[in-house]
Each structure stands twice: as C-alpha cells, then as structure tokens.
C-alpha cells in the first residue's frame, strides 16, 4: 500500500482559468460601465450629473428621480411629468406585449422550424429565404401601410397591434434560430418517444422541446427583446397609456426643450430591470448542455 500523494507533483499555472477571468472581467466592465453611468446618474441631481470631473458615485444621492414614478403628483413638477406618470403603465404594457410576443412566436416558429430541421421537402430552402425576405424590408418602408392595416382592423392603440407586428418581425429569425437547435436534437430521442407511444405533439412537448431548451430560451429572449425595444411601430400604433410601451415613453424624456438626463436615466434603469430579471431566471436553461449522454455513436 502506497501513501496517497495528495499534493500535485507539478502544479501548472492555470493559464486557462486566468485568461477566463481576465476576459470575463474585461467583458463585464465593457458591458456594465456604460450602464453603471446611467444607474449613477439616476441617483444624482441634474447638476451633479453634468459636473466636471464626473462624480462616479453620486455625491448627493437622491431618490427623487425614482420617486416621481410612484408619486405621480410630484411628477407634475417635472418637465415631462406626463411621461413620468406614464412610465409604470408603459412598463406593464411592455411586459405584456413582450411576453405575449415571445410566446406567440415560439409557438408559431416551433412548428415551422420543426419542418425545416426534420422533414425533407421541396422548396424548403426557398421558403427559408422567403421568411428572411419579409424581415429584410426595413420597417420604415412598411410602417405607413402597416399603420393603415392596423387601423382597418381597428387595432390601433391596443396590445394586439403591437404583439402582431412584433411577431411578424421576430418570426422569421426565430424560425431560423430554432431550426438549428432542433437539428441538434438527436432524432433517436423522438423515435424513442414515438415508440413510447407519444403522438407528435406529445413527443414535441415532453421530449423534443425540453431537450431543445437552450434554443427555445434563446429564441424567446430574442422575441422578447425585439418587442421590448421596438420604438417606431410602438410610436405609430399607440397613443395612450393603454398601450404605449416603455421606449415610447422613455423618448418623451428627451425633448427638444429639455433633456431630463437624470429622470431619463431612472426610466432607463427601470426599463432594463424586468428583462434582466427574466434573464436571470432563464440563464440556467440557456447554458444547460443539450442531450448529453442520451445516444451512443
């Protein structure tokens, strides 16, 4: 019986780990610093926000930029007061619209993407490119006819108008995204499910989609963000707090007359929080490995 040598005989400098952390920190800074500046500004008075040299940490920290959102009366005092009072509603609207868009998109795209990943059919390539084509016409070219269309459907200033338009935006790309992920789900899994007496839908629901989860999450995030960010269609298709989304309202903080940097910063922070929370909830799924250990060969 030999003694267990627990001490490594030759320790190697873990270059990979070091590089990893260096990169992670560098990217982290690149990603967060601009946003940090917004966050810091949102806790500053207007005067401090434009001071030279800049205050990286608010010197006279204040919540006033946020309090306006919950105390609409105070908001009246501010330039863009109406926008301030509309912010909570717009957040709600954005959440509803973006979530619905994501869900509707996933459903529609899943069907289509499945066909591209699993079935051999005539015209599949053409159809794929055709889908893309609908996305390639810049929004600016179709906004007016789209507006007319929605008007004739009587959908102006409703969630549905936004959900539908964002769905058409996101759908082609979502299909593209999903078809790739579907492709990497081993066919045998589906076959096993069929043998286990699942019909197509059940196979999709119980086996196929869970395994393709990273792709689904990526696609859902994509659709959600598309809806969350879109400005022009939201501007044209909505007019009241019943449907205005956060980008439209946030734009109100920046008028020609006065740009309320700090209030806008606060609105920006608020606008970023919901998707970020969702991202935190789903990030595990996104990096979960797919199909490990399921098939041999």
């Amino acid at each position, binding site marked *: 019986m030999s003694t267990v040598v627990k001490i490594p005989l030759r320790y190697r400098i873990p270059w990979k780990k070091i590089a990893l952390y260096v990169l992670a920190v560098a990217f982290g800074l690149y990603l967060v610093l601009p946003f940090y500046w917004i966050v810091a500004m949102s806790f500053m008075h207007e*005067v401090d926000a434009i001071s030279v040299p800049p205050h990286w940490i608010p010197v006279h920290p204040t919540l006033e930029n946020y309090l306006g959102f919950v105390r609409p009366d105070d908001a009246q005092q501010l330039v863009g*007061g*109406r926008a301030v009072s509309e912010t909570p509603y717009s957040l709600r609207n954005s959440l509803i619209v973006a979530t619905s868009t994501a869900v509707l998109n996933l459903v529609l795209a899943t069907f289509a993407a499945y066909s591209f990943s699993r079935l051999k059919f005539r015209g599949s390539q053409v159809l794929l490119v055709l889908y893309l084509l609908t996305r390639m016409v810049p929004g600016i070219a179709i906004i007016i006819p789209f507006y007319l269309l929605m008007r004739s459907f009587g959908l*102006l200033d409703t969630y549905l108008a936004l959900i539908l338009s964002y769905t058409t935006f996101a759908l082609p790309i979502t299909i593209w995204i999903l078809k790739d992920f579907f492709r990497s789900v081993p066919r045998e899994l589906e076959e096993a499910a069929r043998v286990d007496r699942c019909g197509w839908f059940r196979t999709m629901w119980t086996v196929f989609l869970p395994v393709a989860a990273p792709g689904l999450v990526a696609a859902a995030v994509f659709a959600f963000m598309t809806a969350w960010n879109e400005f022009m269609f939201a*501007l044209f298709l909505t*007019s009241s707090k019943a449907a205005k989304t956060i980008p*439209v309202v946030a*734009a109100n903080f920046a008028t020609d007359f006065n740009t309320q940097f700090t209030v806008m910063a606060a609105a920006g922070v608020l606008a970023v929080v919901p998707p970020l929370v969702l991202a935190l909830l789903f990030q595990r799924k996104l990096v979960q490995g797919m199909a490990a250990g399921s098939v041999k060969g």
Partner: protein
Amino acid sequence: SNGKSGGGGSSDGSVKFEGWDYEAALVQQNLDNFTKTSNIKVDYTPITSAQYVQKVVAEFTGGGGPDALYVYDDSLAAWVEGDYLQPLDGLPGVDAVYDAIYPGNAEAMMYGGKRYGLPYYTDSNCLIYNAEILSKAGISKPPASLDELEAQAVKIKNAGLLQYPIGLPAQLSDTWWAWVWALVYGSGGNMFDDQQAPIMNTSDHVTKDVLTWLQHAANTTKVIDPASLQLLPVPVDNAMKANRYAFTIGARYALRDYNDPAKSKAAGKMKMALMPSLDGKEHGTISNTRLYALAKDTEVKDNAVKLLTYLGGLGADNKPYTARFWFLQRGLGFAYKAMATDPEIVAALKKFADPAVYAHLAEIAKPRNVLGVPWYTEFETEMHKVVQGVLSNQTQPSAAVDSLAQTAGTLKKKYS
C-alpha cells in the same frame, strides 16, 4: 380614438387635439380649464416631439388625424399641400388676431395667401453672453459686429478665462439651425430672394461672408468650440449654465433658464444682445412661430375653432389668455405686440432679460422666406452639413455657397 374617416371627432363633440409633448401636464391643466368654461371635451394626445411630425403625417395619411393640432411653421406648407389643414380666413376673431401680432409671425402662419393658424408661441434669436466673463476680460459692452465678437472672444481666450469662448449647437439633427439664419439675417443678408431663388452665391454676399467669419473664428482664432459639431441645443444650454461659454447664439427664451438660480450657476449673469453683424449695424434676426391649426377633415369644426381661439386667439377681454399663461408659466415668446407692454408680462420678463432688447428683437425678426417651398427641409438638412464642413475647415466658404445654391437648384428641379 380611431374614427372611420378623417378628423376623428366623436359623437359627443369632443375635440381630438394633438401636440408635441412640451409640458404636457401644463397643457392638460390649461385644457381642463377650457373644458370647464366651454363644456367642450378635449381629447389631448401629446406626442414625443422628436417624432411629432412623422406621427402626425402617418395619422393624416392613414385618415386618423386630430381635429386641432400644433404645427411648426416649417411644416405648414407641406401640411397644407398635403390637405391636412384648412384655412381660418373668415372665421370669427381671426382678423383681430392677425392684426394684433407681429408681422413676422403673421407671415409665418400664412401659406398661399391664406391664414392657417393662431399663434402658440414664437421666438427670435439673439446673441447671448455671460456678462461676468466679459467683465473679467475687461469688456463692458457686448459686440455689435462679428469682428468685434471675435476680438472679444480672443481677449477672453487670451485672458485664460475660457479656451473656447463661443459655443454653437452644430450637431446634425432634425431641428433647424436658427443661429445660421440669425447670422445671415443679422447682417441684413438672405439666402434666397422673394421668388425663393438662391442668391447666396450671386447677388448676396452676406452668407458667404458670414461663413468666412465662421471659418476664421473656428479655425484661425479658434474661438468657436470645435466640440460644437457634437453639440445639440441642450448641452449648449448646460454649458452656458455652467459658465463654460461666454457667447452663444440662441433663442431669447433660453435666458429664463440661464438666469434661474435653481438650474444655473450662471444665473443673473446672462444677458441678451442684438445679433452682431458684419458691418456692425443693426439689421434684424430670425424668428420662428409655432401655431395652432385646424384639420381639414374635422367633423367638429365649431368646437375645434373654439378651442383654437381659446389657445391661440384673444379672449373676451381682448387679451390672449393662453399666450399670457405660457409666458407667465414658462416664459414662452409671444406673438402679440401688446403683451410687450403689459406690466405683468414686463415684470416677469425683467427677471431674465432686458425687456427693451426683448421687444426690439421681436420687432425686427422675420421668418425664413423659403418656408413655403416643398424642399425647404431637404435644403436645411444639406445646409447643416455644409456649415459643418466650413466649421471643420473641410469646405471653403465660396464652395459652400456654391454647393448650397446647387442643392437648391437640384431640389427645385426634383419637385417641379
């Protein structure tokens, strides 16, 4: 809020009213007051100012436009041509309004000989200076000529007070660059004749000379901040308020903020002066007008006209109620001559500006004479780029005016 055809008036006679979102809360407050007294409901939608024009265009194109709305004088011609608006001639009280306002404003609200609006507010441009900085540099009087302006700036610069004493909002954006026009009008020149033919490279040297001065001040004496190319109006305001420029060219209205101790470190030091000219003489300045207008397809014309009158016209007491409201609340410029002598107004005005200069500017200001041409926006946009070229020394003034004239020619042809 989406009626079948134009106008969008609903059965209860309420007026659909749209404006850009400046002080939307105050607007609502004022409208509530109107509803209280007139019993006419107003359905008010403020629209992000940056996209105001676009959205209104979309609405009118789609047939869901408002009954009454704000209009920029820049957009008036297009919107009349686009059949969005209807003239107000012959409506009760309109003549009285046009008599009571400055001619420049009246001119700006007319197109094709017809009157299309009642004044919302107006403003004209002037030279704004920081009296404290000037006095530190030993200067007691604002400049009357451009050369003088440059010399004063050099003095300030040499005194080590400021690296760049002059700041101008010269970043590209969709808003017009009033200061260029102010410089041209301030020296008595024009870019176009009354038939809207370009003269800046032929009979009228002022534009070229002004550009030459700009080029010199920016690149030779380096008194104009090169960062101007990256400045929109708001950052310029912020810089002024922070004592970082001695001079700028801006709207009179800006001084209210500049001199507000709550918002500005330069409060009390900011003064306005007539536009300095090439020859040192007094010539004029540029003005703009924002108006209330009436949609062509409105189904509630009577109510809408009542609203317009409340907002832009004269009240029963023959006083412009809303124009006074805006001045007292926010210092917005007024088109009504009589207000310049209204004691209450003067008292309020004194807090931030010299009432005499203020009124004098209104008298000599005139609108751009090319507002009515369909290609004005394109020209203005092109002009900004050309002026940026001059400021950054990429373009020579003579080439600049040639290019402007050529642009005007091309655009004219395009729209013929």
